[in-house]
């Protein structure tokens, strides 16, 4: 629903799953600089058509938080050729569905539709890449919608507010500390001119990636793309995406958030962690294993075993890591204590298990099982062509290349237990971490 995709929410670490083998993927670029990825799957007469822009919330100008996402909503409000909402109506009239999403690093628009309608989708998507037209009234109403969206998805959800606080504390200099939806006070002030300025700066074929997945031949996609996207003028003043980076961290940060709507206390510890980089994905791959080993499966992970099985301390434990990110990523633990166990006790147990793991290293059998599951996930992934499209889009808007995407499964299979321990030493440093407790009103640790 013109939905947000928070880059931190990959709680299951799925972002790290491997991609399709090289043979079924075709890539090329148009003369105007637009990159194209085609993933062929002929099992159903369906196609997913996506355009990904290399811009997201972390590319916003100061004091305009939420403008990337607001613009995403406004992209449905018409062009010189299409009236407000008409694009979605045409998609539906063709039996398709459409939507869009914004993250810190990318903004993407997509349609799922019968394969023979691909040309029409491209025609409309190309139209709004350069010819957006915004009526002031539509902008004002849509600002109400994004404020409602914030009310529904953030202000009404203590856990979402808590994540917002946690990220703001973790990223002291990088814009990743600002929520994708925006801070409410800044959202209220976003204007039509702000949206158009962002649009003109970032929406151009040489800042976009076309991903087409489904029942269509690559030659056909090339011909259609040249017809519809080929004539678009590239932007001449695109600048490199350099954002303020995180300085070294010397002091651990801790926070307690209380909210009357919380009934179940929980704790989160987040660390800054390296992300996949072009030609250098080894550390990220090792971190995928580290997250799985420590908190992947409730019954077989280090934390699950210790806090849920050997000792009755927690009802839920987890570790998550998001491998795909343009800049520094995060590695997080979550513990939900069992009734009668304090957060202080739960956190002490978490720290004891991390310390023990640093001494003893992984269980070789568990390491092997995780490697097997990662290998198998390549096979299962072939069943979901939208997910494959997503992987390419996310990687290519996060500073990675096609070669990186295709090398990723092998990089994962090459990870050793020593690699995991080396990266654990580096990342699990309390001086670069934020620990937060989310408690009911007047709960443990609140003032």
């Amino acid at each position, binding site marked *: *629903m013109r939905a947000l995709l928070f880059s931190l929410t990959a709680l299951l670490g799925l972002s790290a799953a491997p991609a399709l083998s090289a043979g079924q993927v075709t890539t090329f670029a148009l003369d105007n600089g637009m990159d194209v990825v085609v993933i062929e799957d002929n*099992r*159903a*007469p*369906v196609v997913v058509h996506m355009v990904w822009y290399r811009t997201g919330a972390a590319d916003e100008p100061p004091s305009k938080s939420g403008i990337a996402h607001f613009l995403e909503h406004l992209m449905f409000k018409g062009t010189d050729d299409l009236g*407000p*909402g008409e694009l*979605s*109506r045409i998609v*539906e*009239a*063709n*039996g*398709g*569905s*459409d939507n869009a999403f914004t993250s810190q690093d990318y903004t993407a628009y997509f349609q*799922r*539709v*019968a394969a023979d309608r691909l040309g029409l989708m491209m025609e409309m998507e190309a139209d709004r890449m350069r010819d957006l037209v915004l009526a002031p009234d539509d902008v004002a*109403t849509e*600002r*109400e*919608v994004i404020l*409602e*969206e914030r*009310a*529904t*998805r953030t*202000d*009404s959800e203590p856990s979402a507010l808590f994540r917002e606080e946690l990220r703001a504390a973790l990223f002291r200099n990088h814009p990743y500390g600002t929520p994708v939806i925006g801070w409410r006070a800044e959202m209220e002030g976003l204007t039509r001119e702000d949206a158009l300025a962002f649009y003109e700066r970032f929406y151009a074929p040489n800042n976009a990636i076309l991903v087409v997945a489904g029942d269509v031949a690559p030659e056909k996609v090339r011909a259609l793309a040249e017809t519809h996207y080929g004539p678009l003028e590239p932007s001449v003043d695109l600048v490199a995406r350099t954002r303020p980076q995180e300085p070294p961290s010397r002091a651990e940060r801790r926070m307690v958030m209380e909210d*009357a*709507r919380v*009934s*179940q206390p929980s704790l989160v510890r987040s660390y800054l962690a390296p992300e996949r980089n072009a030609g250098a994905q080894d550390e990220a791959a090792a971190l995928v294993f580290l997250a799985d080993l420590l908190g992947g499966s409730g*019954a*077989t992970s280090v934390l699950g*075993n210790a806090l*849920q*099985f050997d000792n*009755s301390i927690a*009802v*839920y434990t987890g570790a998550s890591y998001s491998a795909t990110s343009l800049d520094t990523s995060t590695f997080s633990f979550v513990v*939900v204590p069992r*009734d009668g166990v304090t957060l202080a006790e739960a956190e002490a147990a978490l720290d004891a298990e991390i310390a023990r793991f640093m001494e003893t290293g992984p269980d070789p*059998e568990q390491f*092997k*099982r*995780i490697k*097997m*599951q990662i*290998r*198998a*996930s390549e*096979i*299962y992934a*072939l*069943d*979901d*062509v*939208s997910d494959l499209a997503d992987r390419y889009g996310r990687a290519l808007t996060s500073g990675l290349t096609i070669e990186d995407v295709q090398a990723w499964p092998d990089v994962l299979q090459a990870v050793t237990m020593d690699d995991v321990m080396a990266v654990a030493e580096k990342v699990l440093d309390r001086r670069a971490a934020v620990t937060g407790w989310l408690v009911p009103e007047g709960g443990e640790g609140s003032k």
Partner: protein
Amino acid sequence: MIRFVATLTILFFAALPARAEIDIQEVTSPGGLDAWLVEEPTIPFVALELRFRGGASLDAPGKRGVVNLMTALIEEGAGDLDARGFAQARESLAASFRFDVGDDALSVSAKFLTENQGEALALLRDALVDPRFDETAIERVRGQVLAHLKSRETDPNALAGQAFDALAYGDHPYGSYYGGTAESVSALTRDDILEAFANTVARDRVFVSAVGDITAAELGTLLDDLLGEVPETGAPLPDSAGFNATGGITVVPFETPQSVMQFGHSGIGIDHPDFFAAFILNTILGGSGFNSRLMEEVREKRGLTYGIRTYLIDSDYTETILGMVSTVNPRASETLEVVRAEWARLANEGVTQDELDAAKLYLTGAYPLRFDGNGPIARILVSMQMDGYETSYVKTRNDKINAVTLEEINRVASELYRPDDLRFVIVGEPEGIASSD
């Protein structure tokens, strides 16, 4: 809430097919078990879907939540393996088994690789015929369920669903949350769990589909191996819940910036001759897309919400039309009035030929998009069986949608949509709205 979403998925899948380019085979095993199969050898794995009709509605009186707790425990140890041993064995095979329960069914969604199919199925078989329900596992999982129930106490969506269900379905299992209450779940014993398993998992109520790298002969053998030792019969299924809420407003005070609303009245079943007309009406009023009347009036024109939807619910024991929306407290009253006005406009004026044509194009065109992967197809096939459809249904479905005329749909609109019967349940601090009774 969870129930409604789950039911919708089933209904939506069942309602969309037309000219599926899939070849559904009906398979009967040597032992007499039936399943539907689509062979798809392209990718070396199989998606297998089992549903046992009844699900959480088979909770014994006073034991609310027992089927839910039992379901969560099926994977927590079986045969010679305790919970950890079972998880390790499954992970070594990279198989995935998901056990889930709702008001109408207990479902098992399994995925396994061709290369170790035999071992994966042997493990799944142990879970279905020889689950251990160890006391330690019961206590651990009970703690998780209790934590979940606790968090629902301050979740406005959960509170809205609970209040609406209680008004609509009363003492029927549908009238309360299938996870139970802290009190009922705390009191459950191992014997209760064993009884719930015996009541729920039985061959006389199972529906099976398989999609992927497997032949009909292999599937026949698989069925007998997997389910041959599952008991023949379980507990009797419940009676209809009806729909007992009257028109009016129920406010559940809760301190939060938004008012969360559920609204609805009685609906229509898939067996009814007017069902397809009703299905199209729901699409026009508040269906999934951005172009429904309610999305247009409430979101696009007035900016009152992030999203609003309506659902035509045909679950096993009720037929309900249900809507959901949330909006900031000061604007709740305006939102409620727009919903009522749209309900009345649909009842009084019906839809236009253009709207009908557009909805037909959408619904019939969207059909093939649903069949886009082994897992999704397996779920569609098992839902179709539970709804009593033939395999040929996938080829005739669109004709039924296309056959609905303007005259017919507007007659159904005037009969089915009754603004005075709408019950609104509102959780929050809605300004200018009070409970009506």
